[in-house]
């Protein structure tokens, strides 16, 4: 054991332990940690984008290089804050509708290609067990999500039932992987506590 004397490590350890008090029960220390995290994360986001993106766009591009059209973007962005002034709150809908509409256009322009590749890569030659299993699985899972065909129909119902099995296997595999993922995150924190802070196993 060789406990750290670095204030940074101590801060980290205290933060971690404060969060883990939640496991005993909901308590003021945990709520304090959660509050501080939320506050820091929100502010960091704001400060980082301001200095690396917004400020350069305004100062360097719009003013510096005289690309006036950047101002329009800035004004558009600022319009969202009209929502806090009831009499002109409706103006805030304009930037929102621009973002939503624009994003929608992009989804419809680019996502179908990805989706089509998912379809065409299911055009498998049914000459191996793997291919047959994938082929059956995709079709039956898709059948499970047909809502206008009656599941009482034995053919549709039967295929959908197979689809349900595939879905359960997929979800089971999601669960197994999720358990390990969550524990991995804890291992990383335990590393900090055990090796950085307590200095276990160090000379």
């Amino acid at each position, binding site marked *: 054991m060789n406990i750290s004397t670095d204030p940074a490590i101590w801060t980290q350890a205290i933060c971690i332990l404060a969060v883990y008090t939640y496991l005993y029960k909901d308590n003021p220390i945990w709520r304090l940690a959660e509050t501080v995290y939320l*506050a820091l994360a929100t502010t960091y986001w704001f400060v980082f984008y301001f200095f690396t993106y917004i400020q350069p766009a305004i100062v360097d591009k719009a003013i510096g290089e005289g690309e006036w059209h950047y101002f329009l973007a800035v004004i558009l962005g600022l319009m969202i804050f009209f929502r806090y002034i009831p009499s002109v709150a409706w103006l805030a809908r304009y930037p929102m509708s621009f973002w*939503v509409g624009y994003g929608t256009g992009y989804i419809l322009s680019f996502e179908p290609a990805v989706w089509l590749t998912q379809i065409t890569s299911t055009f498998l030659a049914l000459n191996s067990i793997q291919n047959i299993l994938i082929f059956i699985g995709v079709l039956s899972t898709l059948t499970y999500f047909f809502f206008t065909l009656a599941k009482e129909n034995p053919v549709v119902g039967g295929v959908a039932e197979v689809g349900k099995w595939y879905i359960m296997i997929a979800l089971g595999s999601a669960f197994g992987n999720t358990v390990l993922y969550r524990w991995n995150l*804890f291992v990383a924190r335990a590393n900090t506590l055990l090796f950085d802070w307590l200095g276990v196993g160090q000379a």
Partner: protein
Amino acid sequence: MRKEGPMIVTVLSSLVVLFSNYFFLGQQWGLTDRLDYWFNISYGIALALGFVNLTIIHWKYVQRRREGWVYSVILLLVMYGYLLLGIVEQHTGPTFSWIYDNMMTVLGAAVFSLLAFLISSAAYRAFRIRTKEATILLVCAIFILLARAPIGDAIWSRWSYWGNEWFMGVLNTAGYRGILLGAYVGAFAVALRILLGLERAHLGGTGTQ
């Protein structure tokens, strides 16, 4: 102009994007080149909305002395204190980064690692083979759990092969592809509803929260 205006902007902006990406002429004109920057910059500015929203919500909590308002005071103090530091030092400043490295990322990571404990007790207390579906799910979950950790191979040398190549690579791939194909259609449908003016939920979100 209050209802129709935003609707027109929504439909027009998505049509411009579609035209520029699908039509040869649209691509040549490059209509979206400049709009893209507008989107990125205006969107970046609007991300400050989270900051402002949080301020307003918690300011109200403090005013009304709502249960737990002390935390709201702390939240506001930390937010504005850190902001002040950020303005003075910028994001690369030593104290600003120190707080970032030693408090913020650590807190974030610790909060998410809590789930390791919660998921394990949930697995024990709630995962019951009460239905046929749940039984298949649990059997697969255990099989994959042991296949993804080296212990599976230690028990039976082919465990990770069957787990990775067959369960994950074949059965799981097929199941997820079926789900994905449907989910993409769902996403297109929502996008088309917006484009056709059938969906207005995004315009309803005005006024203070």
